[in-house]
C-alpha cells in the first residue's frame, strides 16, 4: 500500500460520503409510510405500488427506454465511424471542424443545443413545408446528435491505442481493407463500442432539457414527467423511483464487476496451465 497522506484520505472519505449520502437518505425515505419526511410513518412499500400503478410513469418510462435504445444504437454507429475516420485518415481538409463538432457537444450547455435544434426543426417545417410532428423522432435525432460525440471520444481513445501493425499484418496476409476492418479493427474495438453504447443509452435516458425543447404533444419522456412532478416539491413516489434506479445500477455494476473478475481468474488459470516455457 503506497503511503498516502491523511489529507488525501480525508478528501476521499468526505468526497464519497458527500456523493452517496443524499442517495442513501432518499432510499431510506422511499420506504417511509408517511408522505412527509418529517414523520417516520413506519416501513411501507406503498410508494412503490403507486409508482408501478401509475400509467403516466410507465408510459413515460417505456418511451424513454425506446428512444434511448434507438439513439444509443445509431449514435454508436455514427460515433464509431467518426472515430475510425479520425484515427485512420490523418490530416484531411475540414478535420479541425470535424474535431470541433465532436468536442463541442460534450460541453455545450443543453439549453443551447435544445433551443437550436427546436428552432431548426421549426424552420425545416416552415421553409420546406415538411409536415412532421415533433415527438419521439425529433427527440431521438437530438439525442443521436450529442451522443455521437461521446461515443466517438470513447472509441477513438481505444482505436488510437491499437497498434497499426495489426491491421498491416492482416493486409499483408491477404485481407482487403474492408475485410480487415471487420476481422481485426472492430472486434478489438468492441468493448469500447459497447461502453460507448451504454454511455449513450444513459445520457439519452437521463436527458431533460433537450427533450423538453424538441418534444411534442403526447411525447413525454420520464425525465420530463419527473421534472413536472418535483417542481412542486418532494413527491414520495419519486423516492421510490430513485431507489429502483439505484438498485438497477448497483446490480448492473456488480454483475459487470463479477464478470470481469471471473475472466481475470480464468485467464490466470489458463496461463498457469500453459506455462511460459519458451
Amino acid at each position: 500500500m503506497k503511503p498516502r497522506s491523511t489529507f488525501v484520505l480525508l478528501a476521499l472519505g468526505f468526497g464519497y460520503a458527500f456523493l452517496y449520502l443524499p442517495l442513501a437518505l432518499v432510499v431510506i425515505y422511499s420506504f417511509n409510510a408517511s408522505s412527509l419526511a418529517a414523520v417516520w410513518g413506519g416501513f411501507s412499500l406503498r410508494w412503490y405500488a403507486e409508482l408501478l400503478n401509475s400509467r403516466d410513469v410507465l408510459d413515460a418510462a417505456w418511451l424513454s427506454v425506446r428512444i434511448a435504445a434507438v439513439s444509443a444504437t445509431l449514435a454508436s454507429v455514427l460515433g464509431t465511424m467518426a472515430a475510425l475516420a479520425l484515427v485512420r485518415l490523418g490530416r484531411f481538409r475540414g478535420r479541425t471542424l470535424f474535431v470541433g463538432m465532436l468536442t463541442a457537444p460534450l460541453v455545450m450547455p443543453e439549453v443551447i443545443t435544445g433551443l437550436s435544434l427546436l428552432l431548426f426543426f421549426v424552420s425545416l417545417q416552415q421553409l420546406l413545408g415538411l409536415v412532421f410532428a415533433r415527438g419521439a423522432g425529433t427527440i431521438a435525432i437530438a439525442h443521436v446528435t450529442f451522443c455521437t460525440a461521446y461515443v466517438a471520444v470513447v472509441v477513438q481513445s481505444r482505436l488510437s491505442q491499437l497498434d497499426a501493425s495489426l491491421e498491416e499484418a492482416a493486409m499483408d496476409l491477404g485481407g482487403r481493407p474492408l475485410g480487415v476492418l471487420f476481422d481485426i479493427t472492430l472486434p478489438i474495438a468492441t468493448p469500447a463500442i459497447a461502453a460507448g453504447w451504454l454511455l449513450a443509452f444513459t445520457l439519452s435516458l437521463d436527458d431533460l432539457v433537450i427533450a423538453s425543447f424538441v418534444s411534442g404533444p403526447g411525447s413525454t419522456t420520464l425525465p420530463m414527467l419527473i421534472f413536472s412532478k418535483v417542481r412542486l416539491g418532494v413527491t414520495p413516489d419519486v423516492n421510490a423511483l430513485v431507489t429502483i434506479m439505484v438498485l438497477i445500477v448497483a446490480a448492473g455494476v456488480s454483475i459487470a464487476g463479477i464478470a470481469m473478475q471471473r475472466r481475470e481468474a480464468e485467464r490466470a488459470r489458463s496461463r498457469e496451465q500453459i506455462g511460459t516455457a519458451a
Partner: protein
Amino acid sequence: MTSPAPPHRDGPDPEPGTSAWRLRSPWERVTLAVPYAWLAFFFLAPFAIVFKISVADPIVAQPPFTPLFDVGAEGATSLHLTLDNYAFVLADRLYLLTYLGSLKLALLTTFLCLLLGFPMAYGIARSEPTTRRVLLMLVIMPFWISFLLRVYAWMGILGRHGVLNELLLWTGVISQPLELLHTDAAVFLGMVYSYLPFMILPLYATLERLDESLLEAASDLGGRPAEVFRDVTLPLALPGTIAGCLLVFIPAMGEFVIPALLGGADTLMIGRVVYEEFFFNRDWPVAATVAVLLLLLLVGPIVLLQRYQEEDAT
C-alpha cells in the same frame, strides 16, 4: 488523436495517423462523410438558425418570429433583419447581472470541484489496482443514476420539512426550520454535487498516466514529497487539470435544471432565462439572442478545451 507509429520506423513518420498504404477508397470517404454530414446538418446548421432568429422580430404567429426573407407584393424579396433584440438584451441590466451570476456560479463550482476532486482523483490514481477499480466504480455509479433524481435528492434534504431541518430541529440547534432550499447556497451545493464526477474522471485519467518513475527519480534526487508534488506532479498534470476545469465550467455556465429546482425565484441563471424566455414569454427571438450571446462567451473556453485536451493527450 493519431495512431501510434509501428514499433520500428526509420525516419520521420509519414503524415501521422495514416494507414501506411494510403487508401482513399470510397469506403473511407463514406466513413467520414456520414457522421460529418449528420453533425453538420443537426449540430452546426441549427446554430445558424439560432443566429438568424436572433435578428428577427417577434410576432404573434406560428412560428412566433418574422421570416428572414420577405416576399413583397411584386414578388421582390427583401431582407428583414433587426438588431433590436441585441439592443434590448445588452441594455437591460438584469440580463447583464444574469450573465455575471452564471459566470460566478460556474467559476465557484469549478473551483470547489477542483478543491475536492483533485485530492480524490490523486488518491484513486495512487491506490492499488484492485482498490482503484472499486473506487472508480463508486465515482462512476452516481453518474449512471439519473442526474435529475440526484438533484431531487437534495430537495429532500434541504427542504423545510427535509432531513437536515428535521435533524437540526430535533437536536434543538434551531427552533424554526431554515430556508435552505430555493437559495443560492442550495444551487452551489447541487452544482458541486452533480459536477464532481465530471472533474474527478478526467483528472484521474491525467494523474494515472503520470509515470511513477518520474516521481521516484525526483525523490531520489532529494525532493521531499511536497516539493516533488509541486515540481513534478503539478506541472505534468496541468494540461489535464485545465481540461477538467473547462469540462465543468462550460456546461455549468448554461446549467438549467439545478437552478430551476434548487434555486429561488431570484436566482438568475442564463440557462433558466433562455428556457423561460422561450417557454413562458414565448419570445423566441430574445431567447435566441440570449443563447447566441452565451455561445459567444463560451467559444473561447471551448477552443481552449480542445487545445488542452490535445496537449494532455501527447
